[in-house]
């Protein structure tokens, strides 16, 4: 898999927002590669820039500098018309399936729209294609004449996924897709995403705050902190031996069902504002391992087993 060129390549991407007198550096120099058939999880706390990054990739946020390429062609900073051919390739699935489906359209209408718009089906065979899509996400095609309010949260999320799959994308951006669901339903959706990936060879950029979900679904993980990636690792390397002190603290603060490993370390303080990132290493004010160099110089991403980490201790 390592020899194939990346499906998605993000280079030194920055998304800055100017507000009264300050600049919010929401995404501040992110580099990423995502291969075909791979799931990369993007994790971090509220405001770390993970959703802003995903929105920038589909053109919903303006890019300040840097760029992203899909299959070798630049997809950021384009006009609406110029980006149309790529928009099909990249589909977003959101957290709230209640808000992302049109309540006035039947499921058949909701799914037919992208099929016709992107010429993935002709008028006469669109109904057959709708049924096929519903079957693919585990819903009974007989239900296609119903409206969104007649479905449960989990079923609606299946419909959102079917709509994203309708245009045969190569990459799904999943933004907290299971956060609004109960655990028993979450497990169903995670299994569906896995089997769809196996069948269609799709890639996922999977944004979530739930590290249990990450360990289950992701091949690699990027941990973000104040607009930057601080650790980028193979999933099992990250969970078995987190390299960055922030990742270590994040993992330590997750409540566990197994009582034997009771958590004691809690990270004091709160995430700094991306409008005023701390000098040097952005994590140094909260880091229990910080030393004199940390506030003075900004660390790079240094290679560690199975990936890289932005900490002088890994240099």
């Amino acid at each position, binding site marked *: 898999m390592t020899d194939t060129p990346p499906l998605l390549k993000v280079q030194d991407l920055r998304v800055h927002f100017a507000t009264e007198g300050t600049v919010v550096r929401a995404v501040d120099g992110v580099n990423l590669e995502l291969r075909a058939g791979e799931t990369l999880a993007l994790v971090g*706390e509220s405001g770390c820039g993970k959703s802003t990054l995903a929105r920038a990739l589909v053109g919903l946020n303006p890019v300040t500098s840097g760029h992203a390429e899909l299959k070798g062609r630049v997809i950021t900073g384009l006009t609406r018309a110029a980006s149309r051919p790529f928009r099909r390739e990249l589909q977003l699935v959101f957290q709230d399936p209640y808000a992302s489906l049109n309540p006035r359209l039947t499921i058949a209408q909701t799914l037919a729209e992208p099929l016709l718009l992107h010429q993935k089906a002709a008028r006469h065979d669109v109904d057959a294609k709708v049924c096929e899509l519903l079957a693919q996400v585990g819903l009974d095609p007989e239900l296609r004449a119903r409206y969104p309010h007649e479905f449960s949260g989990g079923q609606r999320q299946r419909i959102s996924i079917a709509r994203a799959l309708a245009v045969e994308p190569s990459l799904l951006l999943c933004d907290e897709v299971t956060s609004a669901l109960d655990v028993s339903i979450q497990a169903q959706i995670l299994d569906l995403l896995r089997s769809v990936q196996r069948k269609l060879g799709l890639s996922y950029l999977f944004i979530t705050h739930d590290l249990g979900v990450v*360990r*289950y679904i992701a091949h690699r993980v990027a941990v973000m902190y104040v607009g930057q990636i601080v650790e980028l690792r193979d999933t099992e390397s990250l969970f078995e031996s987190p390299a960055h002190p922030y990742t270590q603290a994040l993992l330590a603060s997750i*409540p566990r*069902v197994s009582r034997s490993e009771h958590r004691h370390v809690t990270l004091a303080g709160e995430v700094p504002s991306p409008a005023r990132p701390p000098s040097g290493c952005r994590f140094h004010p909260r880091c229990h391992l910080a030393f004199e160099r940390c506030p003075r110089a900004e660390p790079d991403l240094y290679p560690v087993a199975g990936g890289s980490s932005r900490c002088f201790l890994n240099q």
Partner: protein
Amino acid sequence: MTDLLRIRELSVTFSTRERTVRAVDNISFDVRPGEVVGLVGESGCGKSVTSLSILGLHEKPAGRVAGSIRLGERELVGASSGELRKVRGNRVSMIFQDPLTSLNPYLRVEEQLGEVLDLHMGLRGPVARTRMLEILGQVGIPGEERLRAYPHQLSGGMRQRVCIAMALLCNPELLIADEPTTMLDVTIQAQILELLRSLRQQRNMSILFITHDLGVVSEICDRVIVMYAGRIVEQARTAELLESPLHPYTEALLRSTPRVDVPGGGSLHPIGGLPPRLPAMKLEECAFQPRCPRAREECKHGEPALVSAGGERLRRCIVPVAEMGNARP
């Protein structure tokens, strides 16, 4: 030890024009002084409705409450709104999932806390101010400048701390916490759980902790009550419940939760199907039976009773205890 909260045969029904729904069906449990009891289950299982009944916070006349809720010697079901007002805030207080909607966006922290002290304890001026600073210090927000802040100027974690401070002002015996950490990031969640643990220790305060997250349960609860379709399906001490669940629903919940501490996130076993629509009348079968991997023919004939499984453990299932935990379905 005498119970602080004693709930007996509590049922809550809601009627709309089309149908009547029994959201909580004949539940009984106790909370002792200084104890943290978890009320666990998925959306619509009745856990929040139960907690709102304790404070009489249902929108009347929609929610009809039957049964008994005793706080110490006082009966709360059927109490007048005047009597309930004396209980709320003084003896029992509540914190919610979303601190932003629990705080008044137009009032400074000082005014929100001051109102509680004035109404419930008749405290004003410098005495009230001293009390506010003391309580804010206890919840980890030191310094006078926070008193002048508006809710929007505080982070999510800070806002929940302000809500906790407000709930503690009158030294309640019971704190009802309804998903208080669900909207917070994990590092902030860890801080709030730590805070609640230490407050409970210092004040010997009881907490009824409502959550869907079994990880959070293991961090803070002494005992757990698992609800499904408006009824209690299992009750046990936390460690027992998490190590050897005796109801297939508890077992299935544990097995469908992705694990951070197991390679590959553990193997997930989704629970098939959907939670049932809540029935109006008595059930003719086990409520979990249609989704239960251990279901057998008898499960369709009559609802099992909630019976003792040794000591304080209760379960509502006819599958023999010896079969649970081995030969995973």
